[in-house]
Each structure stands twice: as C-alpha cells, then as structure tokens.
C-alpha cells in the first residue's frame, strides 16, 4: 500500500498554514493511492496541533520528541525525519518550500540518497509515481519532474495548494528520538524575529510593491496600504529599490529575489523588467500603478492605472479604508 507523509512546520510556537496545504494535498494523493496520510511534527509542544491536522485529513500524527528537537536544527531535524521515513515507509513525502523547508528537505533527501523535487506548484499521480509541476527560471517556463527512486520526496510552494477540510482521526503517536550528536552542527545564538505579525513575501496573500518610481526610501504610502489590508499583506520591492538601498534585500521580488504567488499584487512605480515579471507573473490578480503608459508591467496587469503613484495611492488608500471598514 502506498502511504503519504507530510512534514508540518512549526515556527515561533505556531503551526504554519503550509502544513494544512500539505495535509489537504496529501489527503487527496493518499485517497487516490488508497493509502493513509501521516504527518510529522517535531518537539514537545507539537501535540496541540494534531487536531488541526486531523481536520485537513491526517490519519496519524507522529510527534518526534527529544532534547535536540525543541528548536529547529537542520542536521537533527533531517535525522529525525529521515528516521521516520525509513521506519514508516511512506511512498510520498511532502514538505513546504519555506526557508526551513529549503534547509531541511535537501538534507533529508540526501540522507536517503534521493533528490527532493523542490518548489512544486501542483501534483498529479501516474500510478504510484508522483509528478511535480514546478516553475523554472523563476517562472519563465515550467516542467514536470519525477523522482526516480523511492521515497518520492517533494516540496511545495507555500500559498499555492488548496486547503480543504476532510476530518480524520488524527491519532497521535509519540516517537522519542535521540539524534547522532557526533555529527557536528550549528548552534543558534540569537533569533531576531520581527515581532509584528508581518508575513513573509512568499506566504503573503497581498503584496504591495514599490519600484524605482518610489524615488526614495519613503514607503509610508505603501506601508499605509499594507496596514489597511492587515496582517495578510506585506511590502515588496523591485531590484532597483533594493540596489538603491531603499529597502532590505529580503523584500526583493524577481529572479534574483523571491518568486511570489499572492492573491493580489499591487505594483507601484514598477516598470516590469523581465526578471521582475518572472517573479510575480503567477500572482492571481495584478494591479499596476505607473505614470509610463508603455511600462511592460501593464502587459501583465489585470488593472492598470496610468498616473503618478503619489497622486493615486493616497486616493486608493482612502477608498480601500472606506470599503474594508464597511
């Protein structure tokens, strides 16, 4: 029987939404294979999340516990995950392509002698073979990737797979795990997280981005817009604004920054280089505000306003505030 396993990422004491996306997709695949769906969580605080995973279709939740698993560490987490994969023998393993997933999935895969099919945006089955559809060249093209060896490990882009409720038992099984600590690893000295609820670009539902047209580091108009949308929105930047030092590099959208897939992408003062368009072209809805009628961004925008952003955005914010206050 072919079973499916997902890895549920916990960060700062909360389970990430990606875990529910993976659970929903994992359920769909497990049903098609006639198998069961399990989830792996790490750490002694993880049990509280089992009922939520059950809601999205998880049959069994394995909780790996051990002193070394209380905070994330690539080596020990990869050891624990590889151990559980070896023990429970799922045919398919899904991980989120978050920063932690990018750190964990390849290390786990290498321990098992396989490649993880990274950053997939959809999956289908051919018999028991998992086909992962993934963008390449930051989305300038796509290809179907297949893992030739078992277990088939794949990572999924956050915010893309559909969440669907499908209540199952979610039976909890605790597994105590002592990693091989002879393998040296790093020690976290300081974790400096932005304490606001600001979501990461790759996980935001709404992104407000400013480019060269911002003319400087004052992004208060865009910050105001993001604040009106609330915690599901965040700020992005073009390469031009990052290279000019107006915004931190972590804000950069594009081929040499982040590839994003929000529900709504609002580009302000961005002309739309090929690298930028590749990085945001799969956003569900795109709004562009730019005074240059010829800007390439307008070829991708669902709604384009040809005007000075400094005149439009304040009005936009006013309208938005009134509408969302209703």
């Amino acid at each position, binding site marked *: 029987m072919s079973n499916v396993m997902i890895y549920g990422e916990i960060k700062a004491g909360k389970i990430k939404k990606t875990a529910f996306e993976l659970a929903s997709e994992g359920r769909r695949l497990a049903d098609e294979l006639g198998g069961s769906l399990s989830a792996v969580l790490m750490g002694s605080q993880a049990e509280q999340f089992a009922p939520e995973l059950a809601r999205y279709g998880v049959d069994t939740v394995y909780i790996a516990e051990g002193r070394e698993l209380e905070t994330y560490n690539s080596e020990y987490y990869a050891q624990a995950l590889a151990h559980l994969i070896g023990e429970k023998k799922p045919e398919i393993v899904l991980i989120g392509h978050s920063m932690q997933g990018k750190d964990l999935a390849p290390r786990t895969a290498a321990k098992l002698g396989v490649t993880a099919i990274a950053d997939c945006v959809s999956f289908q089955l051919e018999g028991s073979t998992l086909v992962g559809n993934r963008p390449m060249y930051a989305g300038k093209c796509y290809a179907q990737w297949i893992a030739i060896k078992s277990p088939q490990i794949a990572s999924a882009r956050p915010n893309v797979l559909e969440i669907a409720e499908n209540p199952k038992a979610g039976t909890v099984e605790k597994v105590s795990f002592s990693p091989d600590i002879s393998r040296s690893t790093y020690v976290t000295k300081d974790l400096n997280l932005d304490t606001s609820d600001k979501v990461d670009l790759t996980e935001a539902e709404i992104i407000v981005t400013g480019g060269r047209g911002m003319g400087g580091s004052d992004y208060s108009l865009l910050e105001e817009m993001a604040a009106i949308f609330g915690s599901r929105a965040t700020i992005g930047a073009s390469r031009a604004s990052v290279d000019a030092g107006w915004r931190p590099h972590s804000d950069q959208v594009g081929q040499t920054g982040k590839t994003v897939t929000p529900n709504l992408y609002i580009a302000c003062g961005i002309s739309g280089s090929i690298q930028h368009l590749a990085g945001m072209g799969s956003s569900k809805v795109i709004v562009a505000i730019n005074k240059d009628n010829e800007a390439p961004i307008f070829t991708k925008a669902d709604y384009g*306003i040809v005007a000075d952003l400094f005149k439009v955005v304040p009005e936009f914010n006013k309208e938005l505030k009134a509408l969302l206050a209703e």
Partner: protein
Amino acid sequence: MKSLVCLKQVPDTETQIKVKPDATGIVTDGIKYVINPYDEYSVEEVLRLKDKFKAGEVMILSVGPDRTTEAIRTALAMGADRGIHVNDESLNQGDPYLIAEALAGASKQVEYDVIFCGHRAIDDDFSEVGAMLAELLQLPQVTLVTKVEVSEDKKTATIERDVEGGRETVEVPLPCVLTSQKGLNEPRYASLPGIMKAKKKPIDQKTAADLGIIAEARSLARNFSMPSERQAGKKYENMEPAEAAKAVVQALRNEAKVI
C-alpha cells in the same frame, strides 16, 4: 584560509526562455551564460576571507559542459587562485543529487576550511545542492547566509542568516558548507590585470570516473512548457486619480473578488 566555491554557470537573467518544440528542455541557442548571481557573492566573500587571513587559497569548483570554463575563468579573474572543472556528459542531467555527488567527490580531493555555494541557482531553482553537499560530506550547513565572521583560529564562524520575518545568528564549527544570499556583500568586477592573470591560472579537468562516481540521476524532467500567457486587463488612463482609484478598488471587490 582555504576556501572552495561551488559555482554554476547559468543563463543571464535577461534571457527570454523558450521551450523546445518537443518539450524536452529549453532552446539554448544564443543564450548568454553568466556566473549564477548568488555564486558571485560566494566568490567575493572567500576573496575577502583570504585577504583577512593574509594567506590561503581560493578554489573554484564547477560541474558543467565545456562552456563552464568561461565562468570559472571569470571567477579566477576576480582573484580566485585555481579552478576545478568537472566536465562529464553523464553528469549533465540536471539532477541536484548527482551534482552534489560530483561536488562532494571533487571536494574530497582537496583541502578546505570552508565551502560556499549559492543558496539557489537561478536556472532550475532547486535550492538543494548546498545542503546535499553538506550531508554527503557529513559537514554542518548554514543556508541563506548574509554575514560571515571567521574566528582567528579558523575553527568556528559566526553567521547571520535569513529566516522568514527576521534574522538568525548561529555559530558553526569549520569546515562547513555555507550558502550565499543576497546582502552578503557587493561582488567586485574582474579588473583588466585580473583578466590577464586568470589566463595563466590552472583549471584541473575531471571526469565522473576521476571522482569515483557512477552517474545515476535521482530525478528527471519532462514536458517543459511556457507559463500561460497573461492577458493585459483594463487600463485606466486620463482619469482623475480619485476616480481611477475608486474604479479599481471597486473592481477588486466586485469583479476580481480578492478584497
């Protein structure tokens, strides 16, 4: 300080990617190849480390076809000392595990204090090879690094790395594998004397057999396709800013239903 930089040659980011009619890959004719941008940060960082310790060696390691020599040469022109080019058709299957195996095989033949990789190659976008290489060499990895401080005794490094919504500081024993993220530094350009000197710097050629590797890919790609073409939507021109803003906000609510 002896450093090894794993470098990949990739299509320039300006490249308009086209898929072959038989969907087996992309059209490579006329593509201009460059050093993967994240690997340039790696090269710059190890050159700075060599300067800091006033001794050592900077080695450039790359797996790829003949043209890869140009990318290695460019890194040598930036100031690296020597290159290792793993050039074997059997390895060029685009499989991250196979590349990590080749890099691990070549790494085992040299001495190093640290290995740098780009955190991601901007062509296939896997973000896997650095971590896989670390695992295959049984070394610790620190991914997405934006600041590196190596201790005087070269036994540990204090690293800053990107995490979602913040930054983490970690201490890692050397040798280790680090993957470079934007923000690490500002890479230098190759100088003219650098370019002249690079012509005489050695590049070792290796095959899979030299590294004791049997090329067995763990993944395969097929059915390449272009993204669905987005149609330009409505344009609001020559309107009062307030009117245009109102029209778009209303459309986002009533038509697109995203707010």
